């Protein structure tokens, strides 16, 4: 614990020095008497006071939440000796808002006092927020000495992106052998009835179609369509973003990615993630609830890291970006390197959907709304329309999503056909 003099001591010294100087100049004894209480206070500096003893503990009501939700931080202070004044600065990570209460506290404690103080933090933006540090400052009786230390108890709140339920999803062209929700044209084990054929040795009795067997006079069985799953890779553009947090294009993209991941995982698909930006990272496709945790962790850390380097998708292992996978590229299309990467994927024959998060609306929301801003946004929207038309001309399915509108509305418009480009633009 570090002890030092307070600014109040310096103020008292300054005023006392002024009083003594004025007393000498004016040749009057009263200014000396004015300085006397101050000098008496400062004389207590002659004895070195010992630091008050006090222990801090804190807890968080929830360590996992969704964007916009709140958690309560409760701090308990126990005094081992009398504390004339203790100032506490509770954790308030950047971006977190105070819901109720205050994250600073000022207390006077007697020996043995245990005081609990709580406040609510609201987290409007995804991320891993550190809430483990409390700054403590204790003062002596006259406020001349102060002791400071940081109480650290590693604690973090994970704020996951908001998820919206989706019913219409881009359907993958290729399916995988595992069981899923996509009805295959191939016949085998499944629920959807396919064809009827004559009974053959080895067929199971439960597959016998009794109605057809009675009508035709011989045993017939119902064949069923296989139900398959698919590999879906969400490719998130982290090269650039616009807008004000927590509503930047990247924030919206992350929310879209989380919603798509949830919906595809609910269909038993294997979902993977690639964040394409200054730092490229990926999560291997898998299915199940644990995979959502892995994807959400990847999305929590997604951030724009500036780089001049255009990353090559060939670096991504094939087991992450399999040729049979549906790639959903989520991008505001602010950086041409991402468009080039998408065209490259299309040229390599990947099944691809481009979900464009409109940066115009996001920027417009962040601006004051002057006529000049409005005109600039309209011109930008026209320019972007031309860019999107260019991508569509290459045969790419481009879905434009204005974040003010439901994501489902953008996904419903997906009309896809297989494309194979001769070369990447």
């Amino acid at each position, binding site marked *: 614990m570090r002890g*030092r*003099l*307070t*600014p*109040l*001591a310096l*103020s*008292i*010294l*300054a*005023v*006392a*020095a*002024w*009083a*003594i100087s*004025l*007393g*000498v100049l*004016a*040749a*009057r*004894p*009263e*200014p*000396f*008497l*004015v*300085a*006397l*209480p*101050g*000098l*008496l*206070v*400062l*004389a207590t*500096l*002659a004895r*070195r006071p010992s630091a008050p003893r006090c222990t801090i503990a804190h807890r968080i009501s929830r360590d996992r939440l969704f964007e916009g939700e709140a958690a309560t931080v409760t701090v308990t202070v126990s005094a081992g000796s009398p504390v*004339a*004044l203790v*100032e506490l600065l509770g954790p308030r990570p950047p971006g977190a808002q105070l819901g109720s*209460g*205050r994250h*600073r*506290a*000022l*207390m*006077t*404690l007697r020996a043995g*006092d245990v*005081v609990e*103080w709580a*406040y609510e933090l609201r987290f409007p933006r995804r991320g891993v927020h550190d809430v483990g540090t409390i700054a403590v400052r204790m003062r002596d*009786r*006259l*406020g*001349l*000495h102060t002791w400071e230390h940081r109480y650290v108890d590693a604690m973090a709140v994970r704020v996951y992106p908001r998820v919206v339920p989706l019913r219409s999803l881009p359907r993958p062209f290729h399916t995988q052998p595992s069981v899923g929700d996509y009805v295959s044209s191939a016949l085998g084990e499944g629920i959807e009835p396919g064809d009827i054929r004559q009974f053959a040795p080895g067929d199971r009795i439960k597959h016998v179609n009794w109605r057809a067997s009675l009508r035709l006079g011989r045993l017939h069985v119902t064949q069923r369509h296989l139900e398959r799953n698919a590999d879906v890779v969400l490719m998130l553009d982290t090269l650039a973003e616009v807008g004000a947090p927590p509503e930047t294009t990247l924030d919206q993209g992350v929310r879209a990615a989380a919603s798509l991941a949830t919906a595809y995982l609910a269909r038993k698909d294997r979902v993977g993630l690639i964040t394409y930006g200054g730092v490229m990272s990926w999560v291997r496709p898998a299915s199940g609830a644990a995979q959502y945790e892995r994807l959400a962790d990847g999305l929590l850390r997604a951030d724009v890291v500036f780089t001049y380097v255009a990353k090559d998708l060939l670096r991504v292992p094939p087991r992450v970006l399999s040729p049979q996978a549906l790639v959903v590229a989520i991008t505001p299309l602010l950086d041409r390197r991402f468009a080039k990467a998408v065209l490259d994927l299309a040229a390599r024959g990947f099944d691809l959907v481009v979900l464009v998060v409109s940066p115009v609306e996001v920027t417009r929301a962040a601006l004051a709304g002057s006529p000049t801003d409005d005109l600039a946004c309209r011109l930008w929207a026209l320019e972007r329309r031309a860019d999107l038309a260019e991508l569509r001309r290459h045969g790419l399915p481009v879905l434009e999503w204005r974040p003010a509108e439901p994501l489902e509305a953008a996904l419903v418009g997906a009309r896809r056909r297989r494309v194979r480009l001769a070369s990447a633009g």
Partner: protein
Amino acid sequence: MIRLLAAASAVALLALLRLTSRAEVVLWVGLLGLALAAVAIAAGWRWAATAAAVLFMVGYTLALRLEGRSVEPGVALGFGLALLLLLAAVDLTGRARGATVRGPVLGTTVGRWLALGAGALLAAMLAMELAAAVAGTLPAMASPLLAAAGGLGSVLVVAALFRRAG
């Protein structure tokens, strides 16, 4: 409540100034000090409180020079205590800004300063008695020099204490 204490100290300082002298210049210096004190209380700025205290001090010395009255230790001690209270209350105002206050913070602060006031009164009485006894033995020609040396000495002692404590 803490702001109220600071405001009461500032008003008491102005009242003591008016009690010492009715001169217009003293009133203006006092009002300037009060304005600075108001800024300090509103914003919780320690530097403004220190400046206000120095201004009040200048006004008080000016009032003493203009009036040339006999020594009033009670008023002087009250003035010194009000200055300390102003500084301490503004300091506390700055710390309590945007904070949850738990426990008898204000009560203990006021109690501490009142105890200090009583101590200062005793010390002043002792100092005055001592000064009266010593004054007769000192040569009149050397008294300004002795006063300056005493003042410098006390400030140096306090500075040494600061170095030791800091």
